[in-house]
C-alpha cells in the first residue's frame, strides 16, 4: 500500500466510525424516548466506548514492539503511551465513583433536563472527536496545516460544548428548579457535569498548547504530544458517552 492510500484509508475509517457513533447516538435517544430499556442503553454506550477506544484512541498501539535503544524516540514514546493510559485508568476511577454515586442516589431515574440541549451538546462533542481524529491522522502523514485546521475546529467545538453545559444547561436547570442543593438529582447532575467540564477544560488547554507548538512547526514524524492530546480528548468523549445516558436518558424523570 502506498503512503497516500494508507492516509486515505485512515481518513475514511475515521468517517465510518463517526457515522457508526452518530447512528448509535440517535438510536439510544430513540430507545430512551420510546421503550427506555436500561439494558439496551448500557449496551449501546459500551459499544460506542469500544469503538472510540479502539479506532480513535488506538489502544492497540500499546502492544507495538519497538526495536532499538532504550533512548530512541520510538521507545520513549511507547513508555509515554503506557504512562498516559495508566493515568486514564486512574482517572476513570473518579468517573466510576461518580457513576456509583449516581446509581446509588438516583437508581433508575434521571434529572428533569432539556433533552434537545442534551442531544446537541452530545453531538457537538462527538463531532469534535471526529475532527480530532482527522487532525491526528493528517499529522501522522506529515500534513501540519491540515492538522492545525482540524484541531482548531475541535477546539472551537470543545469550547462550544463547555459553554453549552456550563453557561446554557446549568442556568437552564437552575431555572427549572434543579440546583446543587435541591436534592440528589441536582447534586448528581452538577457534580458529574462539573467534573466532566473540568476535564474538558484541561483538554482544551492541552489542545491550545499542541496547536501553538504546531504553528511554530515543532512536530513532524515525532509528534507524540499530538497523539497524547488526541487520546486525552477522546477519553473525555468516552466519559460523556456514559454520562449522557446516565444523566439524560435512563429511566423515568426523578422527582
Amino acid at each position, binding site marked *: 500500500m502506498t503512503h497516500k492510500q494508507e492516509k486515505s484509508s485512515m481518513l475514511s475509517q475515521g468517517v465510518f466510525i463517526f457515522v457508526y457513533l452518530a447512528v448509535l447516538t440517535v438510536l439510544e435517544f430513540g430507545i430512551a424516548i420510546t421503550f427506555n430499556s436500561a439494558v439496551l442503553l448500557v449496551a449501546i454506550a459500551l459499544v460506542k466506548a469500544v469503538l472510540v477506544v479502539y479506532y480513535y484512541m488506538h489502544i492497540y498501539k500499546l502492544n507495538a514492539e*519497538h*526495536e*532499538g*535503544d*532504550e533512548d530512541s524516540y520510538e*521507545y520513549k514514546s*511507547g*513508555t509515554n503511551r*503506557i*504512562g498516559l493510559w*495508566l*493515568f486514564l*485508568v*486512574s*482517572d476513570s*476511577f*473518579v468517573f466510576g*465513583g*461518580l457513576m*456509583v*454515586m449516581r446509581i*446509588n*442516589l438516583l437508581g433508575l431515574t434521571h434529572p428533569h433536563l432539556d433533552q434537545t440541549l442534551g442531544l446537541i451538546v452530545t453531538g457537538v462533542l462527538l463531532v469534535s472527536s471526529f475532527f480530532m481524529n482527522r487532525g491526528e491522522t493528517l499529522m501522522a502523514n506529515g500534513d501540519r496545516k491540515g492538522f492545525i485546521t482540524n484541531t482548531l475546529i475541535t477546539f472551537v467545538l470543545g469550547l462550544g460544548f463547555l459553554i453549552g453545559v456550563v453557561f446554557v444547561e446549568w442556568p437552564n436547570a437552575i431555572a427549572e428548579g434543579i440546583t*446543587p*442543593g*435541591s*436534592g*440528589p438529582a*441536582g*447534586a448528581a447532575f*452538577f*457534580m458529574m457535569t462539573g467534573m466532566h467540564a473540568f476535564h474538558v477544560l484541561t483538554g482544551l488547554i492541552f489542545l491550545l*498548547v499542541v496547536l*501553538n*507548538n504546531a504553528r*511554530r512547526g*515543532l512536530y513532524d514524524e515525532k509528534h507524540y*504530544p499530538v497523539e497524547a492530546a488526541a487520546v486525552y480528548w477522546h477519553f473525555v468523549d468516552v466519559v460523556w458517552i456514559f454520562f449522557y445516558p446516565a444523566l439524560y436518558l435512563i429511566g423515568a424523570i426523578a422527582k
Partner: protein
Amino acid sequence: MIKKNTVGSGLLLLLIAGAVGYGIGFGLDALISGGTPKLAGAVPSAFALLFAVSAFFFGLYGYRGITRGLVWQVMGTLLGGLFVTGIRALMGMTGNKLFGAFFFSEPAWVFGALMGVISFLVGVGVMDDWMKWARGIDTPEHHEDKPGWEKYFGVSLDHKVIGIQYTVTALVLISVGGLFALIFRTELAQSGLQFLSADPTKFNVFNQTGPQFYNTLMSLHGMIMIVSILLGISGIINYVVPLLVGAQDMAFPRMNAFAFWVAVPAAVLLLMSMVLGGFDTGWTGYPPLSSRAPVGVQMFFWGVFTAGWSSILGALNVIATVLRMRAKGMTAMRMPIFVWAAIATSIIAMTATQLIGLSFQMVSFQRLFGMGFFDPAKGGNPVLFQHLFWFYSHPAVYVFVLPGLGVISELLPVFVRKPLFGYRWIAMSSLGIALVGFVVWAHHMFTSGMNEYLRVPFMYSTMLVAVPTGVKFFSWIATIWGGKISTPTPMLFVLGAIVVFLLGGVTGPPNAMVALDLHLHDTYWVVGHFHDTIFGGFVFPFFAAIYYWFPKATGRRMNEFWGKVHFWLMTPSFLMLTFGMMFIGLRGMRRRIADYDAALGFDNMHLILTICAFGIALSVLIFFINIIYSIKHGEKAEGNVWNSRSPEWQVRSPMPAHNYEVPFEVVGEPYDYGLADSKYVEFSATAGKKH
C-alpha cells in the same frame, strides 16, 4: 552574626519571624473579629506557624527551592482567600459573613488552600520544564545536581535524591504524628481530664477546648501517620526499584519530582487543619459529623486530596518504570521480589486512591454548595460515603504493608544465606493480596447500617486475605529453616516485623467475623490490631530498609550498637503497648475518647500503655541521633556490606548520579544464595543495547 545558610541562622529566623507573624495575625484577628483575640487563637497561631516555617528554610537554604515554594504557598493562600472574599463582597454576601470565625470564610479558605498548593508547585520550580515544553522549548534530559546537601531542598530529578527527600519527609511527619500521640497518650494515662481540660478558661488552643483538641490530635495522628507511611513507601520504592531493575532513573523523572513536591503543601494543609479549629471526626471524616465540623476539616479534606496525587502519580511511575526499563534478561520471574511488591502496591495506589479524593471532595462540596450527597434530609445517603471511602481506605492498608512485606522477602535470604523459598508463590501472593483487597472494604461497615445481606460475603472475602498472607509466612519460615542466620540490625528488624505482623495478622480474622465484630467494633482491640499490622507491615520493615540501604546512599554504616538498642527498646515497648490495647479493648475500652470512667479499672493499664508509648518515642529518638551522626561519622562501608547478590551492591557506594556506569544483564536466579558458581547479574558494556 548570622552565617549564611546554616541550621543556626534558620532557627534564629524561625523565632523572629514566628513572633512577627504572630503579631500580624494578632492584629488582623483583633481588627476583623473586633473582639479580644485569645493568646493561642487560631489566626495568630496560623500566621506564626507559616512565617516561622518559611523563615527557617530561608535561613537554612536561602530564597530558592522549598523556601520559595512555601513563601509562594502563603502568598497564594492569602491571595486566593482575598479573591473569594472580594467576589463575595461584590455579590453583596455580607449577610453571609464576609469573614468567618477563622479570619477568612470557609469558601475563601478552600479556594485559598487550592491556590496555595498550586502556587507552591510553581514557586518550588517543579513545573518549570513542563511550562517550557508547553511553550515549545526543549529542556535537557537530566539536570545535573550540585554535590552536597543542598540538592535535597530543591527540585532534583534524580530518583535517589527524590527517594531520600521522601524518606526524610516521612520521618519528619512520623515524628509529628508521634508527638501528637504522646500528647493524648499522656492525657489518657489517668482517668479524668488532667491538662486537656473541658473548661475553656483553663484550656483554649486554636479555639478548641481540651476534649476538642484531643479529637483533633487523635484525628490528625491517624492521617499524618497515613501520609507519612505513603511517603515512606514511596521513598523506599523510589530509591530502590530503579536500582534493582537496572534503570538509570524512573520512567518519568519530572513527574517523579512533582509527586514528591505535591506532598509538601499537602502536609502544610494537614497541619493548618489543626490551627483552623481542628476537626473531631477521626481520620475517616464520616459525614454527617464532618459536614458540621469547623473549617479545619476542609483543610484536612484538601490536604488528603493533594497527598493522594502524590500517591497516584508515584504509583503510575513505578508501574511504567518496571514495565519498560528492566535490564536485559530480567524476565518477570527473575525480578527481585521487592519489585513485585512495588508493582502490587502501585496497582492499588494508582486506582483506588481516586475514591478517597472523590469522597472527601464530595463532602467538601456538600459543605460549600449544599449538595446533599450524604445528607438524608436532602435525599442523600451517609452510608454511600463509607462505601466510597473504604473502597480506597481498606486497600490502602495493603498499600502500606505490601512494600514492607517485600522488604522482608528481599532481606531475609541475604541474612540466612539460603534461596528464597517459593519465589513464584511470594510474587503471586503480593498480587493476590492486592486483588482480594479490592473486594473486602465493607467489613468496616458491619455496624453502620448497610444492607445486612452484604455482611456475609464481605466476611468471607475478608478471611480470604489470610490465604495469600499465609503463603508469605510459610515461605519466610521455610527460608529461615536451616539457614546460617546472622542478626545485624536490619535482620533484627526483619525478624521483628515477621513476629509483629503475625500478631497483627491473627488478630484480624476475629474482626472479620460479623458476630464478633459487632462487639469488637470501635474498641481498643481494633486499635491494637491495626497498630500491629502497620508496625509489622510498615514500621519495622521501613527501619530495616533504612539500616540496610543506608550504606548504599551514604557510603557509611549506621552504628550497630545503637541500632540494636533501638530495636531492643522499641520491640518490647511496642508489643506491650498493643497487647495492653487489645486487653482493655476486649473489656470494653472504647476508641477515640478523651476520657474514661475510673470505675472501669483501666487506669493502671493506661499508665503502662503511656509509658510504653514513651519507650517507643525514645527508641525512635535514638534512631534519629544515630542516622544524623552516621551520615558524617559512621564507619566507612563502600563495598558489598551485606554480601548480597543484588545488583546495586555489586558497585561501589554511594551510587553515582546516573546509577550503573556499566549496565548489567541478568544471567541467573536472584536468590540462589549458597549455590556455588551461580550468578544473578553480569556487568558488561553490551548489556545496555536492548529491546
